[in-house]
C-alpha cells in the first residue's frame, strides 16, 4: 500500500520531467496523520536499531561508531570537484568515525529530478543531503521521508545550535500539518549575505562618488551621475540573473527587504502583515508596488538597462568590457568578474537601506538533510542520527568538513586562526596552490556541510579580508525582518494551493517585468491587481490564513 502511495505521489512531483504521463493523485484520506504531535514527545529507538551507536553521545563528544557502519548516501556530484573514492574525507571518516558510504552518485545538473525519482520509486538512499527547507513538502505525503522531528533528542548538537542561535521559530515554520518536520536544515548563526551590486570603481570615481550609497534612492542618483561622467556607457547598470522568467532575480531579492516585502528569487506569494496578523498576497501589497515603482524608475530614467531578459553571459560581457558600470554579484562571483577583467577595479557595495529601513530577509536555515523512512529499519539507525548530528551540527564536525585535517590540509595557531597548508588552496585562499581542498581532498564539499556556512567564525574563516569586511559591514548595518509564522497546510490544501501558487507567481513575475520595463504603465496597477485576483489569490490567501489560525489555536 505504501509503495503505491509513493509511486502516485512521485508521479505528481515529477511533472517537471515532462514525459508523457498522466498524473493522477491519490484522493486518499488523511489517515497517515499521526497521533504523535511533534516537539517533546519523540520516538524512542530500541536496542535492535542502536547497533554501533555511542552510549554517552553528547555535545562535545567526537562521534565514533562502536562498530564499522555503512550508510547509503545520495551524493550530489559537483563538476568543480568530481567525487573520488580515495578522497581524504572518506578515509578520515572511515578511520576516525568508523563510517563508510554506499554512494548513489548524481550529477549536479540532475540532482533535483533524480532525487525526486528515487524517492518516488522508493529507492532513496538513507541520507539525502542538500535539501532546502520547503523542498521536502512534496515528498511528505508519499511516506518515504522520515519525520525527523521525532528523533532530534538523539541529536544534541542540533538541538543546542537551534537553541543558541534562536532558530526554533523558523524551524517551526517547516512543520507539516501533522506537526512534524521532515528535514534537518543547515543552521546558520547569522543571516546569509552574499549578494549585492558590484560597481566599477574607476567609473564611479570619475563621477566623484567614493562612498557607498546609504539608500537605494541614493544608488539611483549615483547611477545617473556615473552615466553622465562616463559618456561611453549606454546604461550605468545592466543586470543578470534573469532566467526562468524571473527578471532581475537577485537584484529584486536583495532590494525587497528594504521595502518590507519579498521579490525576485526571494518572492513568495504570501506575506505576513505583522500589524493585521494576517497573510496578504505579496505581489499586490503597497510595499511591493513601491518596490516595482522604484525599479521602473531606474529604467525610465535610463539608468538600468531595460534588457531584463538578457542572459548572464551578456550582462557580464557588458560589465567586463566597460559597457556598463554596475552588475549584481555575490561574494564568489566577484572573483569571476576579476578573472575576466583583470585590470578593472571593482567592489561589492554595502547593501543600502530603503523606505522601510535597512533590512535583511529573514531566514537562517539553509540546505540540509532528509532521511529516508527506511533508515529507521536500519540496525544502525541511532548511530546514523549521531553521525549526522556530529558531522553537520557539531563544531568539530563542521570544522572538519570545511577545513579538513589539522596538519594535512590546514594549521591553526594559538589564537584560533586557521590557515591552509601552503600547497592546498580553496577559492580565494592560496589560489595558486597545486592542490585544492575540495577537488583533491573532498573537504569544503556541499554534501558534507551546509555550503553557505554554519557558525559565523567558521564562515568568516574562509573569507578573504575584503569579503569579511563587507559581510561585517552589511551585518552591522542591517536588521533582520521577523520570520513569517507557520501556516501548516494539510495535504488537501497543499494540493489545491500548489497550482494556484504557481500560476499566481508566474503572473506576478510577468507583471513585475512589464511594469519595470515600462511596457505597462504603473497607472495600470489596479488592472494588474484585478488580474491576480482573477487567478484566485483570495482563495490562496484565505487558505493560508485559515491554516495559520488553526496552528495558533492548537
Amino acid at each position, binding site marked *: 500500500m505504501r509503495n503505491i502511495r509513493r*509511486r502516485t505521489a*512521485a*508521479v505528481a512531483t*515529477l511533472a517537471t520531467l515532462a*514525459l*508523457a*504521463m*498522466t498524473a493522477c493523485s491519490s484522493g486518499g484520506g488523511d489517515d497517515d496523520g499521526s497521533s504523535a504531535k511533534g516537539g517533546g514527545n519523540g520516538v524512542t529507538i530500541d536496542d535492535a536499531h542502536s547497533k554501533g551507536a555511542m552510549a554517552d553521545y553528547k555535545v562535545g563528544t567526537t562521534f565514533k561508531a562502536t562498530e564499522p557502519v555503512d550508510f547509503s548516501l545520495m551524493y550530489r*556530484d*559537483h*563538476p*568543480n570537484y*568530481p*567525487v573520488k573514492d580515495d578522497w581524504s574525507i572518506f578515509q578520515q571518516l572511515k578511520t576516525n568515525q568508523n563510517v563508510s558510504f554506499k554512494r*548513489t*552518485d*548524481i*550529477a*549536479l*545538473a*540532475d540532482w533535483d*529530478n*533524480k532525487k525526486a*525519482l528515487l524517492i518516488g*520509486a*522508493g*529507492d532513496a538512499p538513507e541520507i539525502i543531503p542538500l535539501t*532546502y527547507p520547503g523542498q521536502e513538502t512534496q515528498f511528505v505525503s508519499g511516506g518515504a521521508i522520515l519525520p525527523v522531528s521525532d528523533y532530534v533528542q538523539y541529536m544534541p548538537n542540533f538541538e543546542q545550535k537551534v537553541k543558541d542561535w534562536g532558530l526554533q521559530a523558523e524551524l517551526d515554520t517547516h512543520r507539516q500539518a501533522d506537526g512534524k518536520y521532515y528535514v534537518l536544515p543547515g543552521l546558520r548563526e547569522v543571516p546569509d549575505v*552574499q*549578494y549585492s551590486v558590484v560597481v566599477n570603481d574607476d567609473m564611479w570615481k570619475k563621477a566623484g562618488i567614493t562612498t557607498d550609497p546609504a539608500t537605494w534612492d541614493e544608488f539611483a542618483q549615483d547611477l545617473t551621475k556615473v552615466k553622465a561622467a562616463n559618456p561611453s556607457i549606454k546604461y550605468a547598470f545592466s543586470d543578470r*540573473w534573469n*532566467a*526562468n522568467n524571473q527578471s532581475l*532575480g*537577485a537584484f529584486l*531579492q536583495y532590494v525587497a527587504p528594504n521595502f518590507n516585502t519579498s521579490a525576485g*528569487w526571494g518572492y513568495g506569494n504570501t506575506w505576513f502583515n505583522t500589524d493585521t496578523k494576517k497573510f496578504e498576497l505579496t505581489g499586490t501589497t503597497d510595499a511591493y508596488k513601491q518596490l516595482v515603482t522604484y525599479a521602473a524608475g531606474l529604467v525610465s530614467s535610463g539608468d538600468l538597462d531595460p534588457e531584463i531578459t538578457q542572459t548572464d*553571459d551578456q550582462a*557580464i*560581457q557588458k560589465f*567586463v*568590457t566597460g559597457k556598463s558600470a554596475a552588475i549584481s554579484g*555575490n*561574494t*564568489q*562571483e566577484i572573483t*569571476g568578474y576579476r*578573472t*575576466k*577583467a*583583470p585590470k578593472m577595479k571593482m567592489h561589492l557595495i554595502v547593501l543600502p537601506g530603503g523606505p522601510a529601513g535597512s533590512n535583511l530577509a529573514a531566514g537562517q536555515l*539553509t*540546505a540540509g538533510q532528509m532521511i529516508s523512512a527506511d533508515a529507521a529499519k536500519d540496525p544502525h539507525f541511532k548511530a546514523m542520527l549521531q553521525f549526522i548530528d556530529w558531522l553537520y551540527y557539531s563544531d568539530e564536525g563542521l570544522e572538519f568538513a570545511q577545513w579538513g585535517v589539522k596538519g594535512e590540509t590546514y594549521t591553526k595557531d594559538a589564537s584560533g586562526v586557521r590557515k591552509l597548508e601552503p600547497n592546498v588552496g580553496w*577559492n580565494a585562499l592560496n589560489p595558486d596552490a597545486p592542490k585544492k581542498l575540495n577537488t583533491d581532498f573532498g573537504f*569544503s564539499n*556541499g554534501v558534507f556541510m*551546509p*555550503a*553557505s*556556512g554554519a557558525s559565523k567564525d567558521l564562515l568568516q574563516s574562509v573569507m578573504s579580508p575584503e569579503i569579511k569586511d563587507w559581510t561585517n559591514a552589511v551585518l552591522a548595518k542591517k536588521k533582520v525582518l521577523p520570520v513569517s509564522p507557520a501556516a501548516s497546510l494539510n495535504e488537501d490544501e497543499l494540493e489545491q494551493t500548489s497550482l494556484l501558487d504557481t500560476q499566481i507567481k508566474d503572473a506576478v513575475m510577468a507583471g513585475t517585468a512589464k511594469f519595470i520595463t515600462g511596457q505597462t504603465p504603473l497607472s495600470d496597477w489596479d488592472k494588474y491587481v484585478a488580474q491576480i485576483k482573477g487567478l484566485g489569490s483570495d482563495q490562496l490567501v484565505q487558505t493560508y490564513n485559515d491554516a495559520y489560525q488553526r496552528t495558533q489555536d492548537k
Partner: protein
Amino acid sequence: MVTETTTPDITAVHASLTNVKETRGVAAFRIVNVVLLTLITVLTVYPFVNLLAKSFSSERYIAAGQVNLVPRGFNLDTLNYVVSDPMFWTNYKNTVVYTVLGTIISMALTTTYAYALSRRNLKGRGVFTGVALFTMFFSGGLIPNYILVANVLHMRNSVWAIVLPGAISVFNLLVMKSFFENFPAELEEAAALDGMTTYGVFFRIVMPLSKAVLATMTLFYAVSMWNSWFGAFLYLDKKDMFPVTVYLRNLIAAATQSAESQGAADTVQIGANIQSVTMLLTVLPIVCFYPFIQKYFVSGVMLGSVKG
C-alpha cells in the same frame, strides 16, 4: 526547370547546363541555389567553427565575447586539462561500449522483427504490428517504467538498462518493414526453390541486398545511442558507468543553473573553454562517422518509401 526556351525537352536542358553560355533562367537559378546553399552551410558550420575557436581560446576573450572564428589567446592547456581527466575517458569508453552494444542489439531485433512482419503469410501479422505501433503512441509513464526496469527486471546499474529499453524504434521498424515488403518476391522464391530455409534466405539473400537500409538504420541507432543520456540518468548511480553525455551535461547544464539554487560558495565555475573542448571531443566521432555513411543515408530512407 523553367527556362525561356520554347522547347523544354531534355536535350535542350542538358545543352543549357553544359553550355558555357547559359540562359538567364538557369543562371538565376544557379545563383539563388549557390547563395541559399552557402547560407545554409555557413549557418550550419559556424557553430562548429566557433566551438573549435573557443576550445583553443583563453577564457578571458570568451567572456568578453571576442571569439568568433579564430581562437584568441591560443592555448592547448584546456585540451590537456580535459584529456587528463580519467573520468572523461572512462565515460567516453562507456559511450563507445553502449553505442556498439546497443546498436548491435537494436539492429538484430529490428531487422528480424521487420522481416517477419513483412512476410504476408505470417500468422497474426496484424497483432504483431499492432503491438509495436501501440508503444509508439502510449507509454506507461516515467515512474512505472523506472520501477519495471530498476526493481522488477533488476537492471539498475547495469549496461542492460541502457541498451535494452527502447532497443526497437518503431519508426525504424516500419521503414524497414516497408523496405522488405518491396523486396522482389521472385528472388526469395528462387532461393527457396534452390533449397534455402527461411533463415538462409534472410541471411544470404535479403541482408546482403539491403545494405542501404541497414546502413541507414545503423546510423540512426548509433547516433541516437551516442547522444542519449536519459537512460543513464534514470538507471545508473555509479559515476564510472555514466556515458560521456552525462559528463558533458553536468559541465554545461549545471553551469547554467541559477546560482541561487546552489549557494554562492558552491557556484559552478566551469570555464567556457572547458565546456567547448568537451563538446568538441564528444561530437567529433559522430562528425567523422557521418560522411562515410551519408550516401546510404540518402538512398536508404527513400528506398523504403518508394513502391516498386
